[in-house]
Every structure is written in C-alpha cells, then in structure tokens.
C-alpha cells in the first residue's frame, strides 16, 4: 500500500514535469520553429542542390533522404534536452526542485518525455514537407507506425545522452558545443545523406555500426519496402540494441549527475 502510494506520487511528479516542459513549448513556439526549420532546410538543400549528384538504389533521392532526415531531426532535437536542463540548473529552478520532496528522476524524466512528445510533432511536420516534394511511403500503416515508434525511441535515448552531457558541462553554451561534437560525426558518417558503400573502407566500418545508420536503414526499409527481409530484421534489431544500450548507460548516469549537481 505504501509502495503503491509512493509509486503513484512518483508518476504524479513525472506528469507535472512533463506538463511544465510542454507548456514551455507552447509559450516559446520559437523553440519548436528552430527545431524544425533546420531539418527542413537540410531536406530542401540536399534534395535540390546535392541530390542530383548522389546515386542511391531508390528511384528518387527524396525517398532515400527523408527517412535519414527524420533521424537527423530527432538527434538535433535531443541537443535541446541538455541545453534546457542546464538552463534550469543555472536559473536556480533545479535548486527549487531539489529542495522539494519529489521523485529524484522526475525532473530529467519529465524533460525527456516532453521532448519525445515534441518529436511527434516534428516528425509529422517533416513527413508532410517530404510528401509535398515527392516522398511516398508504400508499405502500409503498421510499418509506418513501427518506423515512427523506432524514431521516437531513438530520440528519447539520445535525449538522455544529451541530459548527461548537459549535467557535466553546466553552461548552456558548453552543452550546445559539446552536443555538436557527438551529433555531427554520428549524423554525417551514417547513411542519412549518402549510401555507406561509397565511403572508404575504414569509415564504412564505423558508418555501418553507427546507431544512426541502422535506424535510418530500418526506417527506409519499413517505409519503402525491402527485397531482403533478413536485412531489415538485422538492422531493426541492431537499432533496438543500440537504444537499449544508450538507455541502460545514460539514464542512471544522468540521474546520478543530477543528484550530485550542486
């Protein structure tokens, strides 16, 4: 009974924090605009400027590109998780939360869950823009939903990575710079923009095991079909293993750093 009560108050703390973070997106729509303009620019830039020079196995480059851009947008979005937490820390808001008898993980959990919900909006918007410029998925609703869920989990896992880095860096500027240091290699040495087999061998090794590549490839095959269902299965499992590893490592790490931050 007492445990049940403790559990329900932890859930309540988490919901209060999710609500607070979502309200911030409503009050500061520019946060949402900035997290969508950048991937839309990449989408248009690569489709119309570089797309003609990039050969893929798909009939049009936009089909290859959009699933990758979706992964890129949840990764860039994850950077906001750390920056937002550092801002709360520096403004003394975290002191307020830490002096309350609330669940220790709720501040981080509320933020990462709210960012996951923001990603629902970002992904739907990106797909809409993709449709306007010629992207078409043709593997049915359930495959699309599976792809969507995979993206949300990947974004959630990277939000925790970003949260842990934010707790270590302590200033918003440093959190953003540190964020780009891990996001850029992950995004560009992957199959987001170009097929991995065009890269030199040594780079291919990294690009193939990159969580971004396995997720982007899984989403491509889920949305556009795959001649080889074993390949889809192996990429999909690799993506899930990556997500699990990131969560197992970074959730406890971020929570521990949060508790110590003073």
């Amino acid at each position, binding site marked *: 009974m007492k445990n049940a009560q403790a559990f329900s108050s932890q859930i309540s703390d988490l919901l209060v924090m999710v609500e607070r973070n979502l*309200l911030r997106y409503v*009050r500061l729509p520019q946060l949402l605009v900035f997290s969508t303009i950048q991937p839309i620019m990449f989408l248009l830039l690569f489709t119309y400027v570089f797309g003609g020079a990039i050969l893929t196995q798909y009939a049009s480059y936009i089909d290859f590109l959009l699933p990758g851009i979706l992964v890129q947008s949840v990764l860039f979005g994850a950077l906001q998780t750390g920056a937002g937490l550092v801002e709360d820390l520096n403004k*003394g808001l975290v002191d307020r939360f830490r002096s309350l008898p609330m669940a220790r993980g709720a501040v981080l959990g509320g933020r990462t869950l709210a960012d996951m919900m923001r990603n629902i909006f970002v992904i739907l918007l990106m797909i809409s823009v993709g449709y306007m410029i010629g992207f078409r998925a043709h593997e049915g609703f359930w495959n699309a939903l599976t792809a969507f869920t995979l993206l949300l989990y990947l974004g959630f896992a990277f939000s925790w990575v970003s949260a842990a880095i934010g707790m270590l860096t302590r200033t918003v500027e440093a959190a953003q710079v540190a964020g780009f240091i891990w996001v850029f290699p992950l995004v560009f040495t992957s199959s987001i923009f170009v097929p991995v087999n065009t890269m030199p061998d040594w780079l291919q090794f990294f690009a193939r095991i990159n969580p971004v590549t396995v997720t982007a490839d899984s989403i491509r095959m889920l949305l556009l079909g795959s001649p080889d269902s074993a390949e889809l299965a192996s990429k999909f499992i690799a993506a899930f293993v990556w997500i699990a590893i990131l969560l197992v490592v970074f959730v406890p790490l971020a929570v521990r750093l949060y508790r110590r931050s003073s």
Partner: protein
Amino acid sequence: MQSITVAGVRKSFGEVKALRGVDLEVQKGTILGLLGPNGAGKTTLIRALATLLLPDEGSLYVEGYDAVKEPDAVRRLIGLTGQYAAVDEQLTGRENLVMVGRLYHMDIDAARVRAQELLEKFDLADAADRTLKTYSGGMRRRIDLAASLVNRPPVLFLDEPTIGLDPLSRRGLWGIIHELVTDGTTVLLTTQYLEEADYLSNNIVVIDRGVVIARGTPQELKTRAGGDVLEVRLSRPEQAIQAQAALTSLGDASITAPGVLVLPLPGNGKALPHAIRALDGANVGIEEFELRHPTLDEAFLHLTNRIV
C-alpha cells in the same frame, strides 16, 4: 526549543574550504541573521541545511530531522528562497505555485486554493495569469517567496532575499518576513545588508572565511564593536589627508567618503574637544560633525578586520 541545530560542519570544494567547523542554533519562531562578506560560506551553509549538498563533516538538524540522513523529511518542513528567483519564467505566477503544490503531492484543487491564497497575500492576484517574464524584480522575489511557502513550512531559509531590490520592495518583503515569524515560522536569513540583519534578526551570527567570528543580538554586536565614533565633514574635501594627520594623536581616522572622516572615540565624547582643537590647529575647516553610536556596518567591518 531549537528549530535548527548545526554542529561542527565542514565543507570543502577542492582546495577551497568553504566551511571550517560551523556551530549555530536557531530557536523556534525567531530569525537568525547570518552575516558575512562574499565567499564567507553563508550560501554553502544554507544549501547544506536545505539538503542541496552534503557536508564533509558535522551534523545539521532541522526540526529534529537529520538533513544528511533524512533529507526527504527535512524537505517536507522547509521553504527555500535563493539568490536567484527560482521560478519558471515561461509559466504564469499561478501555474508556478500550482506546480510546486502538486510537487508537494497536494491534490490539484488544494494546490489551486493555496495558490490563490498566496497570490492574494503577496499582492500578485492581478498579475496571477501573466507569465513571469512580465514581472518586475520585486514581483519575482515575491512569487519566489510565495513558492517557498506553498507547503506552510515551519522553517524558512532565505539566501539574500532582497538583493537587487529597490528600497520600497525591500521594505515590503521585510514586512512579509516579519509577519511570518509572528505566525511562528523559524527563519534563517543570509544577507550582506547590515541594515536588513539589524531590522529583522533576533540574533546574528557573523561568519568569515568559513568560521563563526561573532554572535549575539544586533545590539550586543554594535556594543562590542567599541564605543562612539566621531564623524567629521570637512568644508574642503581636499584637506582630508591633512585632517587625518592632525588626528593621529587621538586614533586612526578613516576617510569614508570624499571629505568625510570617521574616528573611533571611546570615553563618551570626553576627547571631543581635543579632536576639534586638533583640526582647528591644523587649519582644517569643519562643515559638520557628529558624535554617534557605531552602525552595524562599522561593527561588521571591525569584526571582520576589514579596512573602511
């Protein structure tokens, strides 16, 4: 009856020894003013009491609970207002208070009722549904203090609560703090404004470089700082050095402002004629002079051995 007991608390941050063995007690329903220069360790002590950091050594008790071993019990009994207004700028005043109430696990209706009460008490009812971005500095401090009071805590920690406020807002906040103590709240207040400590505190503890260097009532500390002081305003400020030299036989006069000298003058003013004669003999023109009790500022500087 003690509400707060701190014994032998030490805390270092790497090489920096922020607290080097601090003891203090605060009686229930009183205000203790914790005074000290920047970096004295005031904020570190408040943060340790508010369960935000662990001491290296020593014990901290709040209402009988150990802040180190029973942090959640302590958190239920305290309110904390720090140097920054720890509120969410993107939320309205009401949303901030309701959020804090729900984090104390009040049900949502109770949290709303309490928020309304506090908004009225702190004269924020008209601004309740505006986001805090639009609040003035004084309003932010009030909403921050209101957020610390949502749970009706018996113990309140105020870390420089009026820093950066205009005199009117400061007076307003003093009134609120005074009222809380009248209702039985125990307050531990840090401040650099000696006037504030003088006005609000029942007792004062002065800390410097992580140790307590004096404690007592404001009156006791002022008395301990020595006897009366003579303050002289010269008619020609450029003569200050000359005046200082003329007074060396009576003591070390310090120049506190252009053309203003302050000289400690113990002995109920018996030396006053000598001082006047000395200045007159050196052809220093006097515009104004006053024999008065030392202020808490002077007591503080005396205690911390800082030169004016």
